[in-house]
Each structure stands twice: as C-alpha cells, then as structure tokens.
C-alpha cells in the first residue's frame, strides 16, 4: 500500500506557534519514525493539537519547518500534503451520505472510478449496510469509523488522529483502541495520535511524547516513560507516583537519603539530576511496587528493603486490587496498590503499617520542581 522506500519520517525542526503574545507551542524538534504509532499526550491546552494541526497544514507555524521524508512541506496548503486527519468531532459532511463522505478525497484528486475502493474501505470498517445513510443517522462509534475510513482511503503517508475517541463511552473506546491498532498494523501507515488519556496512549502507541505547557517533557516508549519518568509532571501524569521530599546523606552507586526520620536507598543511576550530600531530592516510587505489612509483622520484612512506617487513613476495594492511602512522617497520602491474593484482615483504616519495597524500584527527581505538577484535579478528570 504505502511505498516504504521514500523515507517517510515526519520531522519537525524548531517548530513553534504563537498567537499574539501567547505561545501555544515552544520551538520543538520531533521525529516520528515511518510506520510507527506515535502518541502526543498531554492535558488540554498543552499544545498537542496545535502541533498536530501544523503537521496537517491547518495551522501555519510561527517558526520552524515540517518535513515529510525529505520534502519540506511547511509552505504547502493542507490539500497538497499527503497527510490526512481524523478530527475530534469527526467533521463528517452532513449533506453527503457515508459513501460520498468516504469518496470525497479520491474524487478531489480527480480519480473517476472510486466505487471499488470505497466498497473495500466500507467493508474494512464494517459499515456495509450503512453506505447510503447520512452521518447523523449513525451512532458515535460508527461515525468515528467513517472518519477513519474517509482519511485512510487516500493512503496518506501519515494519518493524524485528533482525540478521535474522546466522544465515545469507555467500553466502546477500549474496543476502538484495539481496532485502530489493528488497522495501523495492517496498513503500516504512520499514525500520529493526540490524546489526553494516558492509558490510551500507553496501550496504543510505540512512542509517546508527553507535552506540557507547549513543550515536550519527555519522549520514549510507554514502559520506559512509566518506569523512568524524568520530571514530576511525567511521574504524576502517567499513572500515579508517590513523591517524597528527602535530604541526601550519601552519594555513590547507591544514594542514601533521609525523609521523616527514616532512611531510604535508591540507585544512583536512577537520579535525573546530580545529587550532592546535604542537597534535596524527590524520591519516587509507584504504588504497585510497594508491599504493605501490619506493624506487628515488621520483623518479618527482609533486610535491605526500603521501609516507611505509617497509618492507613483510607482503603477502597477495586476488585483485582485494594488501594490504600497511608499517612506517614515521610509524606502524607501515600498510595499503595495491593493485589487481592491473601488479604490481611487487619489492614483497615486506623491500622499501623510498614510500607516496604525493593530499592531498585525507586527513582530520584530534581527537587526544584513542583511536586504536584501533572496531578489530575477534579476539573481535569471531568
């Protein structure tokens, strides 16, 4: 389908966008390898959609260049770029039926006999019996598939997806995530996917760029981003992190720190900034890495593990796991996820507990940052 030899990487160099005095996207360099599923992840207003629209040609960059392969397309209007977009609201033409919508791009490029291709595409997205309906007669999920089909039929070098699943309910969204992933593997086209849903980005994408305030905070494979966040924003926005402010006691291949009277250890190469004795560092650990023991059983915990003592203030049963909130001298409201294998009946709110984990699972972040950056607030979640 696509020509693999053209070197179809998307390359953004020094690209930025300002509206008057407001800078939506700060100058950024980004390379999306050909054939990859690439996600731009961030909260609303972080500049991810603007970046996408600059690739599509719907927004003129203030500075910088957009390359598709070796071709500079910065000055090409959207209708001359081999790039297609699936819009957030789908933007299906309300006055055309489904097959006319899908045929639109082919017809505009002067292709006369489109019937066969359109029928194939309608089959690919499983909308056979709806070909002659108008968009408003379809459900949200069906409209979404039409939007994908309408873009894909043009065999673009890059397919841009602007929060295409945002309007769907949770179950349908999961289903469409898998389906989009399947289509991408099948056609081998580069997908650039914009989303604010970190789970969606991690399940679908090979590469994720986390954006915040018009800048790329970190770029990498989902697992790498999750295990080795380099900023508090990434640590909090991708999943949940327990961040504890600590003072450095010893440096070396193992770093020893103190927080709330206790001592913690972490590998030196997992610190993002240079640590020095007497300096501050933010110690981070993911909730599922922590084990919980009742204070009476503290003696049974193996040596060499990091320990923090505290008191359970809240617990909620989720099914596969139980989530605990623990207050300790080291930090308030630490999150712990325990698998429901052998539940200890003593672990109820009010109980004194010891949190312990393998020091290798600990990471250190620069303490000069906002410790709460990227924490989802009530408005964001809505």
């Amino acid at each position, binding site marked *: 389908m696509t*020509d693999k030899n053209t070197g179809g990487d998307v390359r953004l*160099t020094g690209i*930025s966008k300002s509206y008057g005095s407001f800078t939506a996207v700060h100058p950024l360099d980004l390379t999306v390898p050909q054939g990859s599923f690439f996600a731009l992840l961030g909260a609303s207003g972080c500049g991810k959609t603007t970046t996408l629209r600059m690739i599509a040609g719907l927004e*003129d960059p203030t*500075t910088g260049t957009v390359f598709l*392969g070796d071709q500079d397309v910065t000055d090409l209007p959207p209708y*001359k770029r*081999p790039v297609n977009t699936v819009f957030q609201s789908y933007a299906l033409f309300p006055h055309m039926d489904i097959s006319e919508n899908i045929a639109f791009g082919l017809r505009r490029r002067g292709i006369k006999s489109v019937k066969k291709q359109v029928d194939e595409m309608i089959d690919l997205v499983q909308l056979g019996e709806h070909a002659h309906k108008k968009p408003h007669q379809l459900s949200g999920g069906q409209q979404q598939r039409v939007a994908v089909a309408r873009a894909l039929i043009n065999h673009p*070098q890059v397919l841009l997806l602007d929060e295409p699943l945002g309007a769907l309910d949770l179950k349908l969204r999961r289903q469409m995530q898998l389906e989009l992933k399947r289509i991408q593997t099948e056609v081998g086209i580069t997908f650039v996917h914009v989303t604010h849903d970190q789970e969606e980005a991690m399940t679908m994408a090979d590469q994720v760029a986390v954006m915040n305030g018009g800048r790329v905070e970190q770029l990498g494979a989902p697992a790498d981003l999750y295990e080795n966040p380099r900023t508090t924003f990434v640590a909090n926005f991708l999943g949940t992190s327990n961040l504890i402010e600590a003072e450095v006691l010893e440096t070396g291949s193992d770093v020893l720190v103190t927080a709330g009277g206790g001592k913690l250890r972490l590998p030196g190469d997992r610190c993002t900034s240079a640590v020095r004795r007497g300096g501050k560092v933010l110690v981070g650990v993911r909730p599922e890495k922590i084990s919980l023991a009742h204070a009476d059983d503290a003696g049974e915990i193996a040596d060499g593990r990091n320990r923090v003592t505290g008191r359970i203030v809240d617990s909620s049963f989720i099914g596969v796991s139980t989530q605990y909130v623990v207050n300790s001298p080291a930090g308030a409201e630490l999150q712990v996820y325990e698998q429901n294998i052998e539940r200890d009946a003593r672990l109820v709110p009010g109980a004194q507990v010891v949190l312990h984990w393998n020091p290798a699972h600990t990471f250190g972040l620069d303490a000069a940052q906002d410790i709460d950056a990227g924490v989802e607030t009530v408005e964001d979640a809505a």
Partner: protein
Amino acid sequence: MTATLAKEAPGPVEEPVLRKPPARKRLVPYWLLLPGIVWLLVFFALPMVYQASTSVQTGSLEKGFEVTWHFQTYWNAFQEYWPQFVRSLLYAGTATLLCLLLGYPLAYLIAFKAGRWRNLLLVLVIAPFFTSFLIRTLAWKTILADDSVVVDVLNALHFLDVTDWLGWTEGDRVLATPMAVVTGLTYNFLPFMILPLYTSLERIDGRLHEAAQDLYASPATTFRKVTFPLSMPGVVSGTLLTFIPASGDYVNAELLGSTDTKMVGNVIQSQFLRVLDYPTAAALSFILMAIVLGMVTVYIRRAGTEDLV
C-alpha cells in the same frame, strides 16, 4: 502515490525564520466586505449626509436651494407638527404593546402547546405575508365599515361607548378614528412580534418548566421567574421590530384614518412628494430619526441585550 507529491528536497533551514501569512490572505475579508459596504455607504449613509445638508437649506423650487445653515427650519417644523410627532409615538407605542399582549400567547402556544400542529400554525402566521399588505389593510376598511358585523357587535356590547368616552372612536364609527389606525398598525406588525418571540421561546428547554414546578413554583410563578426572563431577547427584538416601522408608517393612517389621525410619516410624505418643501421634510425626518434612535438606544441599554436579531 507519494512520488507524485514529492519535489526536490531543500536542505533544512538553520535559522528560525518568522513566517507571516501572505498579504493576499489578510486582504480576503476586506474584499468580501467591499461591495456590500460600499453599497450601504453610498445609498444609506451618504443620503443621510445629503438630507442633513438639505435640512439647513433655504430657497424655493423655482430659484433652487442653497445651504444657509438655517436651523430655524427644525424649530418651525417641530412647532408646527408636534401633534403629529406625539400621535406617531402614541399610536406606535400602543400598537407595540398590543402586539406584545396579543402575540405572546400565540407564540407561547406554538412553542409549547401546539404539538403536531406547530408547523401548520407557523404557516398560518407567515402566510398572510404573501398577500400584499396594502390589500390586507384595505380589507380592514370592509371589516370596520360602519354597518359591518364587527362594529355592530362592539356596539351591542357598549364597547364603543367606552372608546368614544376615551376619545378613541367617534359615536358609532370605528373607521377614520384613532382606534382604526392602531388596529391596522397592530395587525400589520404582529408577525414581526410573534416570530422573534417564538424563536426565543422555542429555545427554552421544556425541562426547565418541570424543574421550576419541582422546586415549588406555581405555573404563574414559573412563567414570571423562568419563562418570561428567558424570552427577553425575543421581547426586545420583537418590540423594536414593531415600534420602529410603526412610528414611521403612514399607510395605515392614510387608509384607515382621517385628517385628525395623521402621523408624522404622512407629513414627511406630503412635504416631500406634494408640497415639495424639501428642507422641512428633511428636518422632520431627522427629528423622527433622532427620536427613534434615542429611544432605541435607551431601551437596549435598559434591556441589557446587544444581540438583537
């Protein structure tokens, strides 16, 4: 297919170049606006300037007119024709109020109670438009004629005794009285009241009524506290669309009234087209314009809405 689009690859740009949209693109809105705005400037705004200049001219048709800054014309015109001004505002105001009182129930009925009859009722509101309004106004001559059914019924109910006492009618007659003129004005501009009212009522979510009643509001309170305030945009644009044309109208006064019911429109028309006293006519229409624009501005400020249509 990508090959057709690929051109020779230029080297990467080293320096960040500030890109500006081409001038051609920035001029698009001005080209779109140009013809229509020029039309309005030449045939709406410029005539106002000419009229302003005419209003301070003196002279006669034979010798020609010239600008003498004769502001006296305004004072003379106002002194001579102030009864017509007062009458115009009074008739137009009464007609507007009547339109609101008559139009609101119908608009409400169409918006909330008509069900499947809604489209039919809307058609019936608009359909009279298709018969020339002059023909329909002439029909009122028949309806309000001295021996007509309507007048007989009003007479039998002693309604005309009351209106006679108020000075709205004379004896057993309705035609050629202020009441006939106001009836005609009300009739002619009623659709201009009903349609904006309907548009803003129709936008109101029916569940708001249920919510209000759920929160202990009686139907009357629901109307006063919820429905009516939400229909305010319709009330404002409806009253303006009725009052403004009614205040300058002279057709109803001419066809249904008498020499005692002449409005300022009649005076302007006859000064301009029969007497050919252009300065007085120009001064009169400027005074009318000033009064109407003044009232509209105050009204809009008071009603606190900027989007009228």
